[in-house]
């Protein structure tokens, strides 16, 4: 294994640069180093001005998502040694389709607003008093939504979704998967409220089922599956609203 590896990192300073450009850095290549370790090495030892987000470095916080060689990756889970054989440097860029604020940091307000719009929390028609205890759930009921609950809001799925790139009004994969996480929770009674947001054209119907969101998801959430399943639910509900009298819905 060679002793060093080259990184080409996209740099952008809003004060001085008209557009971003790549800067090359050579970092030690260690077997147990991930791309994030390399970035931290650069920041600590080579160039303190390099700006990027990270926190837990263990695939939980979802802050270190970036494009590595054109693919959306959690940089804390992407080993440098996987790229050691390539002659070309490893290209690190900010997450695709988001506005770049500085270097590798993107603006995430749009995602945060969309995530909130689907009300990703338990909604009850009527809250029962605390004295009556918890809302109980069987392992089977948990199993129905557990996969979708693994989402860490890293936004890799947005960077993989050409629909979001072409039309940023689209609500996007993670927001729908998280809406499904609560819709399918036996303790939740808010599916109807979420439908107003989800069943719009820019909601689930914006999705053309490219399926790349599922491929890049580091937590195996399968947002593409969540969206297609919800399309079926929304269609059934729409037919019901046509066919059934008001009271029977």
């Amino acid at each position, binding site marked *: 294994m060679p002793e060093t590896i080259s990184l080409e990192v996209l740099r*952008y300073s809003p004060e001085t640069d008209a557009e971003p450009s790549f800067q090359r850095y050579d970092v030690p290549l260690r077997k147990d180093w991930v791309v994030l370790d390399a970035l931290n090495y650069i920041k600590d030892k080579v160039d303190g001005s390099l700006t990027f987000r990270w926190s837990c470095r263990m695939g939980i916080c979802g802050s270190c998502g970036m494009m590595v060689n054109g693919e959306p990756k959690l940089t804390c889970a992407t080993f440098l040694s996987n790229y050691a054989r390539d002659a070309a440097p490893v290209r690190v860029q900010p997450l695709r389709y988001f506005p*770049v604020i500085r270097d590798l940091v993107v603006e995430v307000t749009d995602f945060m607003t*969309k995530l909130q719009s689907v009300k990703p929390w338990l909604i009850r028609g009527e809250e029962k008093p605390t004295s009556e205890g918890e809302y109980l759930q069987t392992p089977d009921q948990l199993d*129905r939504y557990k996969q979708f609950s693994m989402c860490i809001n890293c936004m890799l799925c947005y960077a993989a979704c*050409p629909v979001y*790139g072409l039309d940023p*009004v689209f609500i996007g994969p993670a927001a729908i998967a998280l809406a499904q996480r609560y819709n399918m929770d036996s303790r939740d009674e808010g599916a109807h409220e979420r439908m107003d947001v989800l069943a*719009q054209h820019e909601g689930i119907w914006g999705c053309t089922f490219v399926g*790349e969101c599922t491929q890049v998801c580091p937590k195996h959430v399968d947002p593409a599956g969540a969206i297609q399943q919800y399309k079926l639910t929304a269609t059934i509900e729409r037919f019901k609203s046509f066919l059934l009298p008001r009271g029977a819905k």
Partner: protein
Amino acid sequence: MSDTRLSTRYTEYHPRWYRSRVSTWWWLTRWPYLKFILREISSVFVAWFVVVLLLQIRALSRGPDAYARFQHWLQNPLVLWLNLITLFFVVFHAITWFNLAPSAMAVRFRGKRVPDLFIVGANFAAWVAVSLVVAWFLVRR
């Protein structure tokens, strides 16, 4: 009721930022994207087969002469090539669509989710079965 219309919202007071445009050729950058676009385009060819079928039914209803003319038209090399390409796209459409079926269909049986392979397998099995029935109708005299 609160406004539920979706929009794009960014933070109001931000420094100058950089946005790149999505290339018109984004679908050529990765094989999964290209596969997706081919699957979408295949709908045009599926529609062409529907047109051919409708023309066939019309010729059939107009009697043996019209049907013979239709068959002759089918032998035109241009039509033959077009139909060959169409067949490729229809098969491509069917295979890619069946492979996607498990993520759209979360079937549960006795509290457990039915494995993806089962759903894909059931789709392909149904396809083969229907094809066999059709073939049986076509070859029996």
